[in-house]
């Protein structure tokens, strides 16, 4: 009942799918780069507008002041003629006033007379706006000529010897001014865009380097899952270290629990095996149906205990980065143990006595023990172990003189519970466990044919220390 509750609680646990969570939170780096891009753009666009105003203002003032100079010269050299009309004492110096439609014009109007105009205006005349009735200087843009935008300066003046207010106007095509402004903007906008791009790239780089420790943690965790490390040990920045410390503490806690679970599994097996021995031996003395049943069921129980014990040991394993074990020491000790179990099998070993594998000694014993026992059990009576180095790996070759395994069966034999020779006792876990443990440590196992002995050759590779 309690178990069922736990199971349903686990099922109902609202664990969000990883894809959904990641869509909501997004990437930290992407978020930081986006924020940087937004503020860089806002600042640069605002700054760009201000700069544009200042620069175009300066250019326009410069343009206007040269026009103003001409206007003042024009006012200074004008006088009232005998008929009460305005005339210029001397012509204005610029040649453009004489060429029709040249883009530079002047006009004096007032007194209800036909305006007095530069020759460049030809048959057109400048429209005096209705406002501007004071005597101040006015500057404005005008598009009264459809083909030409004008910059106009005008001022009302009462000349000596006249009561009439004359309007003096100087107009110049904006073309030169716009060209200048265009040139400034043509430099300004690309420069600002380039600056913005550069800043965004810098922000991206900053984000990348700033978040580097997170990537380091990810790698460290991946390495841990791969079994190469037991803890995250890389030196990390102040802000990240507490998180890593918590992670390490959690790992230590988990390890302790796993270790306790292993111990409990071992204790349970121990507790069950002694009574099993008693049962089997009690039943051995009598011949009855009950005794047969006891013997048969006790054998089943033993197989179950062995199976679950082997699984508990395999599950709890984690390769430690600092684990080292001498291979020949393990081979020699385990050979002795296997030799006692199979007194008629000859076991011999050769190879590097100093070669060390990056494996815990217990696991190395288990790997070699399983391989040697298989060879002793299914071989023809001779088992030979060779220990050698192959690049960064240590190779342990276990050869026997049995019938070997056909290439077709070599893959199948790794499946849990599969035994090619069901006539001999065993749980069919041996090779599967050897492979699982070897892979936890970054090793591998391959089955081949022994050249010298004619049976099976098992090639176990483990990282050399």
């Amino acid at each position, binding site marked *: 009942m309690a178990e069922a509750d736990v199971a349903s609680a686990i099922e109902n646990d609202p664990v969000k799918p990883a894809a959904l969570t990641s869509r909501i939170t997004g990437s930290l780096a992407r978020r930081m780069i986006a924020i940087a891009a937004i503020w860089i753009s806002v600042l640069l666009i605002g700054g760009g507008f201000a700069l544009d105003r200042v620069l175009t203002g300066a250019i326009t003032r410069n343009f206007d002041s040269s026009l103003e100079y001409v206007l003042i010269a024009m006012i200074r050299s004008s006088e009232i003629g005998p008929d009460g009309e305005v005339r210029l004492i001397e012509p204005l110096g610029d040649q453009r006033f004489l060429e029709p439609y040249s883009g530079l014009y002047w006009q004096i109007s007032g007194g209800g007379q036909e305006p007095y105009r530069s020759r460049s205006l030809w048959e057109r005349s400048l429209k005096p706006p209705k406002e501007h009735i004071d005597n101040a200087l006015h500057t404005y843009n005008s598009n009264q000529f459809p083909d030409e935008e004008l910059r106009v300066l005008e001022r009302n003046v009462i000349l000596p010897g006249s009561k009439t207010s004359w309007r003096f106007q100087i107009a110049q095509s904006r073309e030169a001014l716009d060209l200048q402004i265009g040139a400034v903007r043509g430099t300004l906008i690309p420069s600002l865009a380039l600056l913005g791009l550069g800043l965004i790239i810098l922000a991206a780089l900053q984000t990348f380097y700033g978040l580097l420790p997170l990537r380091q943690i990810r790698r460290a965790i991946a390495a841990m899952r791969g079994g190469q490390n037991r803890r995250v040990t890389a030196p990390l920045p102040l802000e990240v270290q507490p998180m890593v410390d918590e992670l390490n503490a959690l790992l230590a806690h988990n390890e302790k629990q796993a270790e306790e679970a292993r111990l409990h599994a071992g204790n349970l097996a*121990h507790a069950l095996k002694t009574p099993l021995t008693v*049962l089997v031996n009690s039943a051995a003395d009598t011949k009855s149906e009950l005794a047969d049943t006891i013997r048969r069921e006790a054998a089943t129980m033993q197989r179950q205990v062995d199976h679950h014990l082997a699984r508990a040991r395999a599950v709890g394993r984690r390769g430690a980065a600092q684990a080292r074990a001498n291979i020949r020491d393990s081979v020699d000790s385990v050979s*002795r143990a296997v030799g006692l179990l199979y007194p008629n099998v000859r076991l*011999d070993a050769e190879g590097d006595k100093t070669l060390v594998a990056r494996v815990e000694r217990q696991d190395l014993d288990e790997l070699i023990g*399983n391989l040697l026992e298989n060879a002793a059990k299914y071989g023809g009576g*001779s088992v*030979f172990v060779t220990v050698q180095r192959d690049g960064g790996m240590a190779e342990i070759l276990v050869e026997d003189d049995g019938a070997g395994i056909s290439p077709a069966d070599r893959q199948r034999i790794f499946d849990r519970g599969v035994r090619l020779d069901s006539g001999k006792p065993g749980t069919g876990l041996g090779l599967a466990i050897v492979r699982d443990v070897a892979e936890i440590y970054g090793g591998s196992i391959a089955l081949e044919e022994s050249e010298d002995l004619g049976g099976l050759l098992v090639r176990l590779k483990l990282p050399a220390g």
Partner: protein
Amino acid sequence: MRILIVEDEPTLGPQLKATLEGAGYAVDLATDGEDGHFLGSTENYDAAILDLGLPEVDGLTVLDRWRREKRNFPVLVLTARDSWSDKVAGLDAGADDYLAKPFQTEELIARLRALIRRASGNASSELIAGDVRLDTRSGRVTLDGAPVKLTAQEYKLLSYLLHHKGKVVSRTELIEHIYDQDFDRDSNTIEVFVTRIRKKLGADIITTIRGLGYQLDDPL
């Protein structure tokens, strides 16, 4: 023959004692490590059966103490932990044999007999011909000190020829010695084995005596 059993389990201990007594041994039973250690270091036994999971002092410590005190009687260790590390730990601590629980008493008695037989002499002997050495106890064969890989059949053949060094051995004799009763006796396989042994140990180790058989001798 006097045997010491150190076993704390209240049923198994007496059960073992009864069985061994039935098999003709004189048996003392200790039910904890302290007792067991005391008996083992004060009395003379031909062998001891020692459970590793004991109250007070555990089995490995008892064994270690005995060996420090130079008590050299053979010890058979009983263990419920059947990982190879646990088996190896017992042997490395000085045990001579081990038996994983659950076991059958017949097996225990057989192992005990073998243990006592091994302990009383039967020292290993070495058969030598030239650079080839064969250790009859461990079954190791070396050429110039380096281990040689031999199949069980090749080993039997070499061992038989070494035991009869200098003599001419007929094929029939070899076949009878090497094969089980019901094996298909094809005498050609002997030639195959001899060829393989020559390949592994040198061509001149075995001489073929035409019409008679084979001879192995020290090289001249």
